[in-house]
């Protein structure tokens, strides 16, 4: 066995929850605990600075949930989720979690998850985690997206979906036009298609989502083609299927 050191960060808003992970970790000689974080902001900072191999991540935390944190991490380490909610389990697989531990968890269960993670890290230290055997559940969430987290330079910005006026496709990313400015989000149109409330946001074009309440009027552009005029004067093209979507919502 090569004794590669596994560098770990714990992210959980409850002290006692961090404590138990720490005490379980003591039995593993090769594992070094680099930092403990009590919220998502701190988590991002520490991960970017320390570049750990593995993180234990709670999901429900103040400011930034575990999932939102992962969305803006450029090189996410191997993740073991620790949560009291199993409704998140499916989604945990979606973001390629190594494993997830349902609180409270036993030392054995913890050991299993950690051993699996150590094996993965020591075998392929540099390659991005391609986890086989884990189901990639692309199940649609039953809740609509209510806020979007954006990395804007060094800052992390949380935008409530109400503040988005429209969304524009930009290759594999999307540009969000909000009341506070324009922000690039590293997610595709498909992501928004799946997670936005379709009663609030309408896909009017292959490249555009518009918030219904931001629309001032729909006008005939050339023959048989339409465009929408927003409250702030912006004009956006409407495709044929987009016009169908609009008609359905507005009637």
């Amino acid at each position: 066995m090569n004794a590669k050191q596994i560098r770990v960060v714990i992210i959980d808003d409850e002290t006692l929850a961090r404590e138990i992970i720490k005490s379980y970790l003591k039995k593993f000689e090769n594992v070094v605990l680099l930092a403990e974080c009590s919220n998502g902001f701190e988590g991002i900072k520490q991960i970017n600075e320390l570049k750990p191999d593995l993180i234990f991540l709670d999901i429900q935390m103040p400011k930034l949930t575990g999932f939102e944190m992962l969305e803006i991490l450029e090189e996410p380490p191997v993740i073991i989720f620790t949560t009291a909610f199993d409704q998140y389990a499916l989604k945990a697989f979606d973001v390629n979690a190594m494993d997830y531990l349902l609180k409270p968890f036993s030392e054995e269960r913890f050991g299993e998850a950690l051993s699996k993670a150590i094996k993965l890290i020591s075998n392929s230290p540099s390659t991005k985690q391609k986890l086989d055997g884990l189901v990639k559940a692309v199940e649609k969430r039953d809740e609509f997206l209510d806020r979007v987290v954006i990395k804007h330079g060094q800052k992390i910005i949380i935008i409530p979906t109400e503040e988005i006026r429209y969304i524009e496709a930009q290759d594999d990313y999307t540009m969000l036009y909000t009341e506070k400015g324009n922000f690039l989000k590293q997610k595709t149109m498909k992501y928004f298609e799946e997670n936005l409330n379709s009663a609030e946001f309408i896909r009017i074009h292959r490249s555009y989502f518009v918030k219904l309440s931001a629309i001032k009027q729909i006008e005939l552009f050339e023959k048989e083609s339409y465009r929408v005029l927003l409250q702030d004067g912006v004009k956006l093209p409407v495709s044929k299927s987009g016009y169908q979507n609009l008609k359905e919502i507005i009637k």
Partner: protein
Amino acid sequence: MSNPFISNKKIRALYFSIWFFISQAQVLLLTYFLNVKLLNAYCDSLVFNFLYMALGLSFWFTVSFNSLENYSTSKVFINHIAAAVITSGLWILIGYYAIINLITGDKVYSDFLLKSLVWRFLIGILFYTVIIAVDYVIIYYNNFQEKLLKEVELKALVKEAELKTLKYQINPHFIFNSLNSISSLTISNPLQAQEMTIKLSSFLRSILSKNEKQKNKLIEEINNAKLYLDIEKVRFAEKFEFVEEIKIECKEMEVPSMILQPILENAIKHGVYESLDKVTIKLSCGMEKEYFRITIENNFDPESIPRKGEGIGLKNIRNRLKLIYNQENLLTVQKDTNLFKVNIFIPVG
């Protein structure tokens, strides 16, 4: 409901066999006591009884349309008398003309037949009465069965609703996180782990038993809510503080049970869980005109983005207050830049 004399196998079989028995009895009566020839007796009996058996099947409809629930008793009574007279009259009329066409040239029998018509009429009324009585018994039996079934259904619905409230009250996220804290404490501080186990148990017990009691003294409500807060305190030791300003005279006031805990839970969920700084939760109360007011306020991080799901707990309480006191707006919410305030008004007197 369909006619049970046709649709119900058992009742149908019984009905036919009774008519068979009656017709046999009539043959016996006619031949032995009234000296009618056997063939004529059979003919007479079959025609009259078969006819009535057929007529009897239709009585179900007169009963169905004359239910005692929809019409007055006297009206139902008059309807039935009219129906009885008409059916019996029709019966002897058709029976008589059928028989005199079948049996010709027997002077003795036709004399007897003519004389017996009055009796037959009376027997027709009697048949009518008996069949109608049986119909009503069947209807009431069916209604009774239906009522029993409905009651069972209703009970199931109530249970389901109760279960839903329970599930709502016992937030699984809270329970499992508390258990995780206990699990952690067993390693670092077994004594505190024991304490927390007991607190969690008391809290669960208070929720489980609470459903029977509609109202409770404020002080008891506060004590129950404190069980909950104590547990959260173990989880988030440095993150919040609970302050109560309760005058002695308020402590004995009656309030709906389980009314404080959801509001405090709301304050913890949206104040403490979402904030990085310390949150103060303050409970106070006082009289305001004819209302007893309870106020719960907490500061919150104005930068935290409210997550959805806020307000379901408060809405539930508002609905409960409305149901109990039959008044609107007994719960008000005030939201300032960093202060969240919930007022409950309990009508007094």
